[in-house]
Structures are given as structure tokens and as C-alpha cells.
């Protein structure tokens, strides 16, 4: 007979989640499951739509990183048209993407993670959020709010709206950037870079004092995957896929993203609406890999911008220049990427070509298939469409960032549960730790919750007869 513990609800978005933990007769953790409980059926309901519409439809998969879906869909559309984009269009798209990185990574750090780091993991949960942060450390909170604002306003300038912009189309972009707009944002770039530097200092200070926790919290071996550029540099917009194993050995390199099916396969677990991708040659679960900030910094050899590259080198020391394994280091890696995004954004704004008005190309061919791959803030995002001769989508396949990390999130939750549940008692700190484990990977499952309040968790230990043996819950 087993006992079951349910942590519910975690939170909402493309993955509404809960956690189920099963104990054996001795009260030890037998099994844990991170259940994703929402399903929308995007792969099917896109059938019959024109591929031109896909950048707008699929953006609605995620309101936190809509730009990623928007761009992956547009890239798939470029492949269907069989076109090479004019230089200005490429730059504008990458600029849009970098603006999203600045807003999304800042949101994740300031609104979500920094309350833990600055107010303390054991601070009053009612205050451990961005509003509490505003009260206690207004200068820092305001920096976060303003960084996010900068990113969102640049997105708006390029695509008409802050959330769900309408900017990229198959074949390019639909609006050029004026010199006046360019100057407005370029004037703020140095401040943005400096403010991200402040966030990085906060994170480094935290890790300097909590090294032991970071080195032991939800640490486990896995493979890593991400796009890299031609010299193995971190690449967020365009590149080739690379996979490394837990020792840092390169398993796959220079894989054209349109060959993703040769290295990735997915499986289904009966208890989750989110599939489990894995490295195809190793099978499941051995081939579980991680994506997102930690995954990308683990596959990359260098970063192409100077400040971020310096930080990257310091970061790599944590893993003795090899792989950095701890889940908490996602937060650190995320800020290094934000810094890269800000530096890259500045370089793009300084580039005269970015303001060129030659921003799209036409084509009269429709290839039957198009694949668009991009690094979303949380990890690799794959859009794959098949169209008929009129450009109507016949079939679609999407693999989203959270999907790639599904196996890893499950593993992280398992590690934490093993440590914090003994017998029928839930040890103090369990709630925060499960929350923290999930939050490392997926802002979408937690960040917006955390932005406004405490992540709501309730854990019950229930006997096989249904009697509640122990219960622990965060205060609303």
C-alpha cells in the first residue's frame, strides 16, 4: 500500500501543474510526478489555417515569451517560402528577440528570484514577492521594473504591442525602425547594461554566500542542448544544435535545426499532458537533457560580447571549466544571458543596416515543409509545419522549451522530495524547496504567480484510507 501526497495547484500557463508524491510503507519517497494538467491542442487546431497566420496564432501559446513563438513561426514560414532574408530583416528580428530576453530574464530575476535572494528564502511569504521588494528595497525593485519596461517598449516600437507584437512575417518584417526610434533606445542601452550588471552582482554575492546550497540543491547529471554559433558561441536567434553529455563530451554538433528529428524523440507519460523529449540515440529516460540558460551555457564555448564573455568565464569555474550542474545556477546563467542580450542589442542598434527599409522579400514557391528553431528564454523552441499548394497548414508539430525540460523538472522535484519527506511528516521548508526547484527551470509555471504573490502550494499526506496525516500549505 502506498500513500500519496499531492501538491496543488502549482500554477498556471501553458503548463498548469501539480506535484504528486508517493510514499512506500516505510514512509520513504517511492515516486514523484510533476503533472502538467493543461492541454490546448495547438498541433491540431492549426490545421487548415494559412501559414501566414501562424506567427500570430502561435504567439498565444505563451504571453511571457510570445516573441519566441512569433519568430519561430516566421522562420518556419521563411523556409516554406524558401527565402533568405535581407540583412535588415534579420537584424530587426534579432533585435526584437534580444528585447524579449531583456524583459523576460529581468522579470524572472527581479520579480521572481530576487525576493528569495534579497529578502531570504525564509522571509514572510506574504512579503516575499515583488511588492514586498518594492517596500524593502525600492531602488532594486524599481531597476527591475524599468528593465522590463525597456524591453517591452522596444518590442512595442518594433511590433506595435508589448505582448503579442505583430512584426515578423514569413519573408521578413512588416515595419522598419526609424532613426529617431533607434536613437531613443540606443540612448538607454548603457543604463540597461549597467542595471543588469547590478543584478549580476546581487546573484554573484548570493552564490558566494550560499555556495554549499547551490552545489547540493537539485543537482543531478543530464545531457544539455542548445543552439550555438559558428565558433561555438552562445547563440539565441540562429545557429546549429549541439548536445553535450553530463561530462561535457560533445554528442552532437553542427546539427542543422531542420534535422531536429534525427536527434530528438518524445515519449508520453500517462500522468502528464506535457510530453517528454529525450536524446534519441540514448532513449528515455537516459537521454534526458536540459535546455534554457544553464543548458545553453553548458553547451557553448564562449560568448561573443565582451562583458558577458568575462562573466561566462567566471561562471565556468564553478564546474572547473566543465559542466555546471546545480539547478539553482539557472538564475546565475540567466543573468549572464541577459547581459549578452543587452550588449548584442546595443550592437544591433548601432548597426546602420538595422534601420534600412529593405525588410522583406517575396517568393512564389511554397515548399511543402518548413521548420523554424529558435532559443526561447527558457530553451529551444521548435515549430514544424507542412503545407499544401495553397499554403494551408496540413500538419504542425511544436516542441516547446518547457517540454525539453520536463524530464529534468521531474528529476529536480524528486531530488527535493527525497530530501524533505521522511515518514508521514513534511519537513519545514519542503514547500519552498519544491517551488524553488521548479522555478529554476520554468518561469512560466511560477513567475507570474510570484510576481504578484506567493506561489500557492498545498501538500497533504494522505493515508491509503483517505485520512489526512499531515498537511502543509503556504498562506494565500
Amino acid at each position, binding site marked *: 500500500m502506498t500513500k500519496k501526497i499531492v501538491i*496543488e*495547484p502549482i*500554477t*498556471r*500557463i*501553458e503548463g*498548469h501543474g*501539480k506535484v*504528486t508524491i508517493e510514499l512506500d510503507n516505510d514512509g520513504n519517497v517511492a515516486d514523484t*510526478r510533476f*503533472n502538467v*494538467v*493543461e*492541454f*490546448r*491542442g495547438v*498541433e*491540431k*487546431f492549426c*490545421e*487548415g489555417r494559412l501559414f501566414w497566420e501562424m506567427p500570430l*496564432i502561435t504567439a*498565444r*501559446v*505563451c*504571453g511571457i515569451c*510570445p516573441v519566441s513563438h512569433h519568430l519561430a513561426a516566421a522562420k518556419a514560414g521563411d523556409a516554406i517560402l524558401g527565402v533568405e532574408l535581407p540583412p535588415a530583416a534579420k537584424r530587426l528580428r534579432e533585435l526584437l528577440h534580444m528585447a524579449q530576453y531583456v524583459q523576460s530574464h529581468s*522579470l524572472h530575476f527581479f520579480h521572481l528570484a530576487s525576493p528569495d535572494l534579497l529578502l531570504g528564502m525564509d522571509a514572510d511569504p506574504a512579503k516575499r514577492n515583488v*511588492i514586498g521588494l*518594492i517596500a524593502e528595497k525600492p531602488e532594486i525593485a*524599481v531597476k527591475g*521594473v*524599468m528593465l*522590463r519596461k525597456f524591453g*517591452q517598449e522596444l518590442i512595442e516600437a518594433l511590433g506595435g504591442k*508589448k*505582448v*503579442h507584437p505583430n512584426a515578423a512575417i514569413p519573408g521578413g518584417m512588416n515595419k522598419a525602425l526609424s532613426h529617431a526610434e533607434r536613437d531613443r533606445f540606443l540612448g538607454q542601452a548603457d543604463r540597461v547594461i549597467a542595471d543588469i550588471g547590478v543584478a549580476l552582482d546581487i546573484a554573484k554575492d548570493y552564490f558566494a554566500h550560499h555556495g554549499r546550497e547551490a552545489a547540493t540543491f537539485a543537482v543531478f547529471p543530464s545531457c544539455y542542448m542548445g543552439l550555438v554559433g559558428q565558433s561555438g558561441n552562445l547563440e539565441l536567434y540562429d545557429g546549429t544544435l549541439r548536445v553535450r553529455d553530463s561530462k561535457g563530451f560533445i554528442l552532437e554538433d553542427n546539427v542543422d535545426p531542420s534535422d531536429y*528529428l534525427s536527434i530528438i*524523440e*518524445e*515519449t*508520453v507519460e*500517462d*500522468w*502528464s*499532458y506535457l*510530453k517528454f*523529449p529525450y536524446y534519441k540515440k540514448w532513449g528515455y529516460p537516459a537521454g534526458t537533457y536540459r535546455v534554457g540558460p544553464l543548458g545553453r551555457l553548458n553547451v557553448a564555448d564562449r560568448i561573443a560580447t565582451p562583458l558577458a564573455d568575462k562573466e561566462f568565464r567566471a561562471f565556468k569555474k564553478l564546474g572547473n571549466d566543465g559542466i555546471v550542474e546545480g539547478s539553482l545556477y539557472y538564475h546565475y546563467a540567466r543573468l549572464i544571458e541577459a547581459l549578452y542580450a543587452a550588449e548584442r542589442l546595443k550592437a544591433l542598434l548601432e548597426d546602420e543596416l538595422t534601420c534600412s527599409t529593405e525588410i522583406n522579400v517575396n517568393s512564389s514557391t511554397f515548399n511543402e515543409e518548413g521548420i523554424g528553431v529558435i532559443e526561447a528564454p527558457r530553451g529551444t523552441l521548435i515549430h514544424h509545419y507542412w503545407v499544401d499548394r495553397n499554403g494551408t497548414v496540413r500538419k504542425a*508539430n511544436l516542441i516547446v522549451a518547457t517540454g525539453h525540460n520536463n524530464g529534468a523538472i521531474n528529476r529536480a522535484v524528486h531530488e527535493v522530495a527525497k530530501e524533505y519527506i521522511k515518514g508521514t511528516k513534511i519537513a519545514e521548508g519542503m514547500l519552498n524547496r519544491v517551488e524553488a526547484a521548479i522555478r529554476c527551470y520554468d518561469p512560466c509555471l511560477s513567475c*507570474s504567480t510570484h*510576481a*504578484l*504573490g*506567493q506561489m*500557492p*502550494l*498545498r501538500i497533504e499526506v494522505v493515508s491509503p484510507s483517505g485520512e489526512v496525516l499531515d498537511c502543509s*500549505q503556504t498562506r*494565500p
Partner: protein
Amino acid sequence: MAKPKIATAWLAGCAGCHMSFLDIDEAIIEVAKLVEITASPITDFKEFPAVDVGIVEGAVNTTDNVEVVHKLRHACKILMAWGDCACFGGIPTMRNMFDKNELLRRAFVETESTAKGRIPSSDELPRLLDQCKPVHNVVKVDCFVPGCPPSAKAIHYALVELLNGRIPVLPAEMMKFD
């Protein structure tokens, strides 16, 4: 006087409406002074606290969503729907063109990247409703703020109107359907 309380819930939506709320930027500091945001996106659904204003984003897509939206309705005096999904159904209702089993089969069995697929059926998971619906098809909604998402301005305006005791009627320039 105690500050008015707000709770927000998130059904089948993309979080974009909540993000648009964060896009009020510095004004969030003012809002935080005026209202108490009880646990949001989504408090512990088992114990929704009694609040003055309930806010909902997203359409009603699963048995879980039905339960949550009923609990929110009972817990709040005024229920406000944010965004096209909550107001009209939005993008998630595109699935209504297909039978729900077809949707599940495509995602979990037929997709080219899936090996040995099957449709998840554990009772730990909620079930898909036959049709995905806007919130007012399930519970009474007192005010609507459309848009995908509504602009930060519209969200801010609606909140301030409510705090002044008025049911918000959006001025034409904030009324957007997209």
C-alpha cells in the same frame, strides 16, 4: 478602511493578460498601495479567500478550469474577465473545430517526434471539456476587458474604476479586439 482585496485566476490562457497587467510598470507601486493583491495568479484554490474583485484570464477548457472559476465566483463580489480568451473564448476555442479525441491523438500519438505515444488518461489529470468556452458561459461575469491582451492602460483604467465603486465601461480608444 481595509484595502479592497483582489484575487486573480488563470484558466486556459497564455499569461499574456497578466503580463499586460505588469506592463503598467511603475504604476504597480500605486496599485499596490490601493489594493491588497491576495495570492495571485491564483491563490490556493482549495481555500480561495473572500475578495472584493476576482479577475480571470483564459477560457474554460478543462474540468479543473470549471472548478476554479466556480470557486473564484463564489469568493468574489465582482468578477472581471481579462482578455479575449476569458471574454469570448479566444485562440483556445480554435480547438472547437475538432473533436477532442482528434486533438489528443495528434498531440500524443501522431506527431512526428513522438515514439510509442498514447493519450494520457491518469485520473491525476483533469479532463478536456467537449468544447472550450468563454467564462460567461459557465459563471456570471460582471465586467469585460477585451483585447489580446488588453493594453496595460485598459487594465489600469478598469481597476481604478472598480476601486472607485464604478463598473468600468472602457472608453472607445481602449476597446480593442485582436
